[in-house]
Every structure is written in structure tokens, then in C-alpha cells.
């Protein structure tokens, strides 16, 4: 964990998650300010827009704009949801935010509820992190006890109820409408959009869904002003961001740095390449983001615009680092299996296509590849993308397209020679993806 940044600043592992420590770090001062100064909701949304905060879950949609879609004066229930269903391979930042600094999410959500007129909210927490769910419940209890949550918050006429909802193992629930279905007690299958959640969301009521890190940033924006937050990063890419660095580095972990920090610096913070080996490839924004060759990555800065210009996506900020001992066919095979396993089965192109992609990559990896398999892969991805209700189909296709684009010769070698370009012993010792040769 980095000592710098905002969200994780002053946080000391498991010891300082509680209310008292959070308040000592300046916590809940933003909520107090909003309530005592009766800041108009429009002003809060304007600050969010000025901050250039963009959705930290992966899509990078401007948060202030999203909040402005909520029909504040619409009579009846309105809901708020926090997406902590963090299951995108490579991403593990929300887990650290929730276990080490849960109150910043609660404070951010409460300010959001005030700005959008929501009376009730849910934090949807990833199934596999049960201890984090329990921690968040404990933090909620502290906040309620202190009058920071519930009826008449801090003695005002503003009320907001917030609860934790625990998932139970489904990647697709990170898709916002699948998440809403799941809170309603159903299979997590995404809904058609439109209507968008801001008009028809949870229980059919207007709903806004943001990522954990997005909500966690809100108190800081209120305290330092939109402009101050923006200036921490770079234009159109405001603030700091948590990057989850995994793979072949010496110190995998979360590093919170200013937007626009060079990738090379981030790599250094993570202890550099494991065993001093050469960088081969990086997936810069979670497994759904296109892979980039190491040399391209070394010229990038960590922000939405730079990574997008290089042909990938900043996504959730999950940086998967692979060194020269990695077989790219093997790496893609595992990712393709994941999407095949996690497709919800609702749309035919995704349900059938993800299985097809996996089977073709699997046979290439296992020496049974055919001459026109690369064309076949491109054809299958072309028939999935843009033809499904949600983005999982695209998410399954982008790794395939980019691996074949940047490392095509390795795939061709596999097909021609029926074996890996990187010897199995080297893979076993180095990349570690390989089972014992």
C-alpha cells in the first residue's frame, strides 16, 4: 500500500479503519460542511464536474454528469448503489478501500445521496471477500451510532439509510444492471438499456450506481474543491487513482498515485520486474483491456487519455505485468476460459462465442491449432462485439484481438511447431503459469 495519495493517506493496515481514526484523519468533515452550510445539491454536482472525476470502476464516465441525470425532484423512492463487486481479474483496490478506509465510502455515499435526493442505498460487496463485508457492516454500525447515517443525519432533516449486500460469486454482477437484478434477489443477468438506471433502476426507481473508489473520492473533492482535485492529476483526468499492480513485479499491491504518473514510475514503486527479467507485456486496465507490448507501455502515463491513445483502456486501474518468460498463448487461454465460465448465458453471441474462443485458443496452446485459427478468432470476436446486451462479450473479445494483434507471431509459432516459443521449464520457473513440465 502506498503512503501517498488521498484515499489511502494515513491509513495503517487493519489498525485504523474505525470511526475514531477516520475522524482524526479529517473524516466526515466534508459531510459536516455540506450539512451545516446547507450547500445546494447543484453546487455539489458542479464541484464534481469541475473535479473531472471519472468513474473508477472501468468505464471512466464523468461522475458529475452521471449525478446530474438523476431526477432529484421526482417524487417517490430514489436509490443509490455502490459497486464493490470487484471481480475483474487484476483488480483488488476496492477491497483495500473497504477494509482499510470504509468510512470514506460511507461519507461519499451519504454526500451523493444528499446531492441526488436518495433515501436509501446499498453497497454490493464481492462474494469472495466475506471478511470485508463484515468490516463494512461494522463501519455502518459505527456511523449509525454516531448519527452520521440514518434518520436526521447530524440533526438535520436529511435522512439516508445505507446497507451492505453480499454477492456470492458472479463476475457479471459488476455490470450495473446485473448488480441491480442481484440486489432484487434474482439471477444477475444484465438488463436492456435504455431505460437507464437513472430513470428505471432498483425496484424500478431512479438509481445511481458508482464504483467504490469513485464514492471514496467524493469527500476529498468537497474538502479541496473540484479545482484542487483536478489539479492533482491532469486536465480531463482529475485526482489520484489506485492502481492494482499484479503479476511479475517484486511488490504486487495497490499504489495510489496522481493521474498522469508515468508507467515506469509505477513499475518502480511496485519494486520493478521480478528476478530482474525483461518486461514483455502489460494489461493496463484489468483483464478486459487490450494488452500492450512492454515497450509501448514504458512510454505511457497512467491516465485515461494516454492509455487510450496507446490502444488500450485505463479501465479499473488493474495493471497486470508479464515478463519475457510468459507464453502469451497460455496467458490468453486462461483469460478466455474466465469469460467462458462467467458469461451469464443470456445472449447467444456471448454464450456460444466465449466458449468458441476458449476452445480455439486452448487447441492452439495444446498443439492442435489449425492454419486459419487466427482468422477464425478474429471472425468470432467480430461476431460477438456490439451484438450483446452488456459489455461482457466485448470484454471477452478485446483480449483475444489484442493478443493476436501484438503477439501474432507467437500464436503462429504454436500452430506451426505445436509447442510454446518459450520452453516449458523456463515458463514453469519464470512466468509460473505453466503446470510442471
Amino acid at each position: 500500500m502506498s503512503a501517498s495519495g488521498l484515499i489511502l493517506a494515513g491509513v495503517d493496515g487493519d489498525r485504523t479503519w474505525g470511526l475514531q481514526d477516520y475522524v482524526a484523519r479529517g473524516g466526515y468533515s466534508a459531510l459536516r460542511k455540506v450539512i451545516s452550510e446547507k450547500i445546494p445539491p447543484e453546487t455539489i454536482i458542479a464541484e464534481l464536474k469541475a473535479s473531472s472525476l471519472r468513474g473508477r470502476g472501468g468505464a471512466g464516465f464523468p461522475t458529475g454528469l452521471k449525478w446530474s441525470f438523476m431526477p432529484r425532484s421526482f417524487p417517490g423512492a430514489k436509490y443509490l448503489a455502490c459497486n464493490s463487486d470487484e471481480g475483474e481479474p487484476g483488480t483488488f483496490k476496492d477491497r483495500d478501500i473497504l477494509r482499510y478506509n470504509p468510512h470514506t465510502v460511507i461519507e461519499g455515499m451519504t454526500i451523493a445521496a444528499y446531492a441526488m435526493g436518495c433515501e436509501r442505498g446499498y453497497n454490493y460487496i464481492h462474494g469472495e471477500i466475506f471478511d470485508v463485508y463484515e468490516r463494512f457492516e461494522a463501519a455502518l454500525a459505527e456511523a449509525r451510532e454516531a448519527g452520521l447515517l440514518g434518520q436526521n443525519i447530524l440533526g438535520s432533516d436529511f435522512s439516508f439509510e445505507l446497507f451492505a449486500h453480499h454477492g456470492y460469486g458472479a463476475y457479471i454482477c459488476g455490470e450495473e444492471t446485473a448488480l441491480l437484478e442481484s440486489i432484487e434477489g434474482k439471477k444477475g443477468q444484465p438488463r436492456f438499456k435504455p431505460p437507464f438506471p437513472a430513470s428505471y433502476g432498483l425496484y424500478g426507481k431512479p438509481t445511481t450506481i458508482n464504483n467504490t473508489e469513485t464514492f471514496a473520492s467524493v469527500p476529498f473533492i468537497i474538502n479541496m474543491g473540484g479545482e484542487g482535485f483536478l489539479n492533482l492529476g491532469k486536465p480531463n483526468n482529475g485526482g489520484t487513482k489506485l492502481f492494482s499492480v499484479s503479476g511479475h513485479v517484486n511488490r504486487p499491491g495497490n499504489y495510489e498515485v496522481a493521474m498522469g504518473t508515468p508507467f515506469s514510475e509505477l513499475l518502480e514503486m511496485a519494486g520493478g520486474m521480478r528476478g530482474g527479467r525483461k518486461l514483455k507485456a502489460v494489461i493496463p486496465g484489468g483483464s478486459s483491456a487490450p494488452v500492450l507490448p512492454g515497450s509501448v507501455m514504458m512510454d505511457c502515463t497512467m491516465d485515461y487519455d494516454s492509455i487510450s491513445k496507446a490502444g488500450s483502456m485505463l479501465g479499473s486501474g488493474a495493471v497486470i505485468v508479464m515478463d519475457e518468460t510468459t507464453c502469451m498463448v497460455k496467458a490468453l487461454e486462461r483469460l478466455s476460459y474466465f469469460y467462458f465460465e462467467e458469461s451469464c448465458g443470456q445472449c447467444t453471441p456471448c454464450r456460444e462465442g466465449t466458449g468458441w474462443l476458449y476452445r480455439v485458443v486452448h487447441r492452439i496452446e495444446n498443439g492442435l491449432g489449425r492454419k486459419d485459427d487466427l482468422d477464425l478468432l478474429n471472425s468470432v470476436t467480430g461476431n460477438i462485439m456490439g451484438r450483446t446486451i452488456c459489455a461482457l462479450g466485448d470484454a471477452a473479445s478485446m483480449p483475444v484481438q489484442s493478443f493476436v494483434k501484438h503477439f501474432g507471431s507467437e500464436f503462429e509459432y504454436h500452430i506451426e511447431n505445436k509447442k510454446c516459443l518459450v520452453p516449458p521449464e523456463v515458463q514453469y520457473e519464470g512466468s509460473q503459469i505453466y503446470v510442471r513440465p
Partner: protein
Amino acid sequence: MLSQESLQQIDREIAKYPPDQKQSAVMAALRIAQVEKGWLPKELIEFVASYLQMPAIAAYEVASFYNMYDLEPVGRHKITVCTNLPCALSGGVHAADYLKEKLGIDFNETTPDGKFTLKEGECMGACGDAPVLLVNNHHMCSWMTKEKIDQILAELADK
């Protein structure tokens, strides 16, 4: 069919949702039921459905959709290893291999003494801690070396 304690826990979950949306508690109720009974036989799913006043088929859809519910009996301790790419790059596959060797079983198998079931997991959102194991769905074990795996298996074997 469920203990008083489990029912109380389910009631606490129901209270999180609007009064006409009891079904929202189904995921938690199935989890609580599974913790008590070890797995989810059909009758238990039906019981949960009737407790929440929802159709049994709707509860079954949920139980069969989310992969942490066990619709068949598992060993006393279910160990799930993440072998997804980021974990694999830091030894996830090796850890799984070692577990298979130690337990003498493959994925989706249970040891003859009924103590352990081994599962291959998908992303648990803890890639920085790889290799990662999940014990009985709720207890995550990070940075698993061979020594640590030995220690955990020894502790669990006595439970």
C-alpha cells in the same frame, strides 16, 4: 429446517430491504442456510423460498447462478484456489498443483475421508495477495507458500 439462530440472521437481512421486497434477502438467506447445513439440497432451497414468500424456482435460479452455492455435498472443508491469470503469474497454479498432490485429489473432487473438497476459483479480487485460497467460502488465505498450505491443511484436518 433451520436453527433459530439462522432464522434470526435471515430476519436481519430481510430488514435491510423495503417491506415488499423480501426476495432481496434470498442471496443472504441461501448463504446462511448453506453455512448451517454444509450445502443446499433442494428441500432447503424450497424452505428458504417459502420463508421469503417467493417461488421455489426463483430461489433455485439464484442458487444455481452464483458459483459459491453448493448444490451437491462437499467435504467438511471446501478449498477454492484462484488460478486466474494475475494469480497464476504469482504462483496460483503451482499452489493448486501442490494442493492436488497433498490431498491426492483433482479439482471438484473430495478426499475419501470426506474432509476436503478442492475447487478451482475465478477472480476473488485479491490478485495482489497471490497465491490465494478461500476456505469454506468465507475465509481468505493470502500469500500461500507450501509451508503455509501444510499448516492450514493440518489445522483444518483437526476441525
